[in-house]
């Protein structure tokens, strides 16, 4: 009975999340339509709605705070330049994340010199303000995530924080679904190995 209740609860949560994501998709689509008509107010509204997710993805992909900021700016500038195309976009969320992914790769290629420098101690995770005790966990996990490849970090981010399916991740990062799932599994395996090595 308890198991049944748990399953029912999970189904309800999934349904609510799906509806939330759907309404978010509708809002973003409306904003895309308005931006395509030249509305700068819609641009600001979209920034407020999307910047956290885009910045997170860019940070996890590039590993640098400054680069992540540059990527977000680049994404919005690209979007404004190609505003005529925005009304044709079917899935604005996937489109924006895909543009962010490409912009992050472009920026990393342009700043290849930085790859030879030691990894910046960029924090990829933060604890919630209401629970400062998790700050240690956040710092520890941030350190582990820095040792994953950018592609693996990106997939883990999209899976855990964006709550995307592997198929969606494949569309966003332009790889087959199987490759996205494989990157995720390899990333987690690497992460667990590091944690086991460091555990007493």
């Amino acid at each position, binding site marked *: 009975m308890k198991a049944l209740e748990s399953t029912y609860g999970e189904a309800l949560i999934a349904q609510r999340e799906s509806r939330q994501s759907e309404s978010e998709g509708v809002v973003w689509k409306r904003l895309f339509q308005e*931006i395509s008509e*030249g509305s*700068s107010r819609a*641009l*600001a509204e979209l*920034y*407020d709605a999307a*910047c*956290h997710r885009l*910045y*997170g993805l860019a*940070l*996890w992909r590039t590993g640098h*705070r400054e680069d*992540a*900021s540059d990527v*977000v*700016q680049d994404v*919005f*500038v690209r*979007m*404004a*330049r*190609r*505003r*005529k195309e925005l009304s044709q976009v079917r899935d604005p969320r996937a489109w924006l994340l895909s543009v962010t992914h490409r912009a992050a790769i472009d920026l990393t290629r342009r700043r290849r010199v930085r790859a030879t420098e030691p990894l910046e101690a960029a*924090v*990829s*995770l*933060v*604890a*919630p303000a209401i*629970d400062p005790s*998790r700050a240690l*966990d*956040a710092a520890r*996990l941030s350190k582990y995530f820095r040792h994953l490849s950018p592609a693996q970090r990106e997939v883990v*981010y999209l899976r*855990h*924080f964006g709550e995307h399916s592997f198929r969606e991740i494949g569309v966003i990062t332009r790889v087959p679904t199987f490759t996205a799932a494989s990157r995720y599994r390899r990333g*987690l395996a690497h*992460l*667990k190995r590091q*944690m*086991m090595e460091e*555990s007493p």
Partner: protein
Amino acid sequence: MKYDPDLGALLEGLDAPEPPTTLRASVLSAAGQALDEGASDPWARLWHRRGLRLAWSVTVALLLVGHVLLPVLLPASPAQPSETETWVGTGAALSRLESDDLLTIFPIRLNSLAFSDDVSGPDANRAPETPNDLQISPETHS
């Protein structure tokens, strides 16, 4: 004891950091500028930018001057066959020559073949099946 961390549980409650507060203004400023540039049509952009306007004027002036001066400076010369035309003509002549030569070297005389009406024998009415069946009869050949 094997340590098997549950990543889902570890990540629970954690989140990616917030973007810097200064980012909003810079992003919206750059994107707003790009939005305005995209809004104006190319002719309006040409008109409003001094550099583009100057470049366009110089180009048009150069085209006009060239149009007027070039026929005066370069007198018309009699038409001569170009190198390409000569080459194509030579190629056509060569290919015709080669086909004539081939016909001369390998003359095909249909009336000298074994299945002609002059030949009599048991296989006279049989259609040729193998290359050996197409024998040239000495009488007809001479």
